[in-house]
């Protein structure tokens, strides 16, 4: 029986080079991402304040965190923000995509207009909306000079409504992108199916409700995953638009973490809040990535 010959030098080299090439990226990611995640999680169980400290305190930071009204506010805001942001972006995105898919003249002009906000920094977006919504100089002031004296629009300065201005700016920035995702989905649908459905006598409304929208499932899923992960990570926009205010009215977990860690010197609590954010994103992203990468095999 054959002795399996040793592979020659070239073959062995070609087996090793790919792994060698991949290893710097992997090493960096393992250390600077996963190593750091472990370190941060560990810090969340310590008495770190201004600087990391290694006194083990168990779940104390977490129980403190859940008793903080500041954290509670940011979670409530997160709930309102995420729900409205995801719903509105999806609705606007889907609506615009369906409308644009009706052989619209000027589609080539409209599409980039819907999408350009995605190329901007949230800081720029925040700045533009901050002053536009400012009652002193923005929309309210303009309406007053135009003669509508009773017009009132001070949401950005109003504790009860400020969070909705964050939603507005965020939807403005991202909804065009969701539109592009749905449009790609619509364009991928086999036209013959639609023709067949029309032969069957389906009205436009039924065509969309029964045939087309159900086929956009993957686009819905992607949109949901992307939007929810963006929602949890929202930070810059709040900083630029409201700075978390008025008061704490627009604090989100990301801004909470930042201020507790870097300005209030409560690193342990900051780390605990970051860990919770990570868990939230992981619970959405990991199943998604798992299924995406699995299908490819």
């Amino acid at each position, binding site marked *: *029986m*054959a002795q*399996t010959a040793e592979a020659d030098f*070239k*073959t062995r080299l*070609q087996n090793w080079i790919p792994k060698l090439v991949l290893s710097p990226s992997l090493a960096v990611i393992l250390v600077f991402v996963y190593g750091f995640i472990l370190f941060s999680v560990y810090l969340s169980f310590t008495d770190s304040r201004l600087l990391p400290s290694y006194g083990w305190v168990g779940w104390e930071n977490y129980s403190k965190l859940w008793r903080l009204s500041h954290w509670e506010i940011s979670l409530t805001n997160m709930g309102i923000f995420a729900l409205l942001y995801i719903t509105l972006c999806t609705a606007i995105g889907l609506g615009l995509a369906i409308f644009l898919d009706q052989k619209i003249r000027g589609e080539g002009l409209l599409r980039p207009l819907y999408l350009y906000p995605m190329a901007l920094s949230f800081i720029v977006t925040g700045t533009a909306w901050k002053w536009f919504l400012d009652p002193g100089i923005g929309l309210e002031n303009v309406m007053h000079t135009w003669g509508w004296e009773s017009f009132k629009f001070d949401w950005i300065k109003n504790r009860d409504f400020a969070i909705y201005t964050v939603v507005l700016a965020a939807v403005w920035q991202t909804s065009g992108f969701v539109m592009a995702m749905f449009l790609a989905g619509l364009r991928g649908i086999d036209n013959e199916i639609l023709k067949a459905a029309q032969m069957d006598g389906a009205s436009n409304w039924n065509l969309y409700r029964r045939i087309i929208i159900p086929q956009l499932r993957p686009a819905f899923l992607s949109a949901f995953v992307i939007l929810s992960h963006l929602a949890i990570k929202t930070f810059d926009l709040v900083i630029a638009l409201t700075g978390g205010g008025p008061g704490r009215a627009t604090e989100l977990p990301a801004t909470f973490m930042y201020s507790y860690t870097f300005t209030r010197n409560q690193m342990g609590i900051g780390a605990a809040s970051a860990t919770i954010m990570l868990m939230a994103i992981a619970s959405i992203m990991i199943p998604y990535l798992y299924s995406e990468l699995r299908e490819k095999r």
Partner: protein
Amino acid sequence: MGFLDIDKATKSYGAIEVLHNVDISIEEGEFLVLVGPSGCGKSTLLNMIAGLEDITGGEIRIKDRVMNGVHPSNRNIAMVFQSYALYPNMTVGQNITFGLEMHGVPKPEREKAMHDVAKLLQIEQLLDRKPGALSGGQRQRVAMGRALVRDPDVFLFDEPLSNLDAKLRVDMRTEIKKLHQKLGTTIVYVTHDQIEALTLSTRIAVMNGGYVQQLGTPQEIYDNPANIFVATFMGSPAMNVVPAKVVMQDGRPAAQVALADGSPAILPFSQDNLAPYEGREILLGIRPETITDPDSADRKSSNTAELTNRIDVTEPAGSDTFVSMQLGGRDVISRMRSDVPVAAGQQFAFAVNMEKAVAFDPDTEMRIAP
């Protein structure tokens, strides 16, 4: 020892063995075709010869040199791929000489080799073009040129004609055969097309389920298929396989088959070795072209049987007419000259050349006669 030896080669992916103890040996200058349905392991075997997939067990030797673990570029082989795999960013000339360049052949020699090959394949005028600007047939030639220029010990072809349209495929088939005859190179050729296998090869390995079902010359494979799989895979239309019972008639074995109306017909065998099967069920294999009208029956045949049966369907196909009938409860196809007057529903006298008939064991599906 042959020129190319495949010695008990096996291939596994994890726990799944996809090739089982493949033994093939061919001499220098032979044209070996690996043929079988998709998933039979033929391409895997070719890739193992090329060194693109490693071998799990056994050995592959070229010119008595063990190739296990040898890098593809060090095996002195060349390969023509199904998609031709021409480098899209290089000109035809660069495509042809890339391998020589990688092996450090100096430029003047590369140029000379390129022009020789281009001349041989009549692609000189294409040398400065990019593959994207070529037709399917031209790409095919360039791919062969790239293989030829290396002057390898063994040429490997992986379904090279399957991307061409029907007419071009036939032309290129002839061209490959001419090239082989002219250059006398050793070729291993993978295809799922049994006609390609029969026309091109000097030796065929019919594969299925990771096993070599039969290794032989085209004639052996066609006339004496080792089992039912080979019998029905090779040849078009496929060999008819009919349940029959072995009976003795005038001291010789014969097959008793049921006609369309259920009455028996007796077809005497030419082979005496079926006598021990008397009274047993067998499967009778008859090629469509051996069932004809009595006038067209092969006069050299020493054993022509006749039966009269009802015609189900006739399918005129230009030069021939395919006539189907019920025999032993199965559809049986016969091939007539197109001028034979036949019509569906008609009772018709068929002549069966029993010299060419084969018999299979219904349990093992292996050939028992001749």
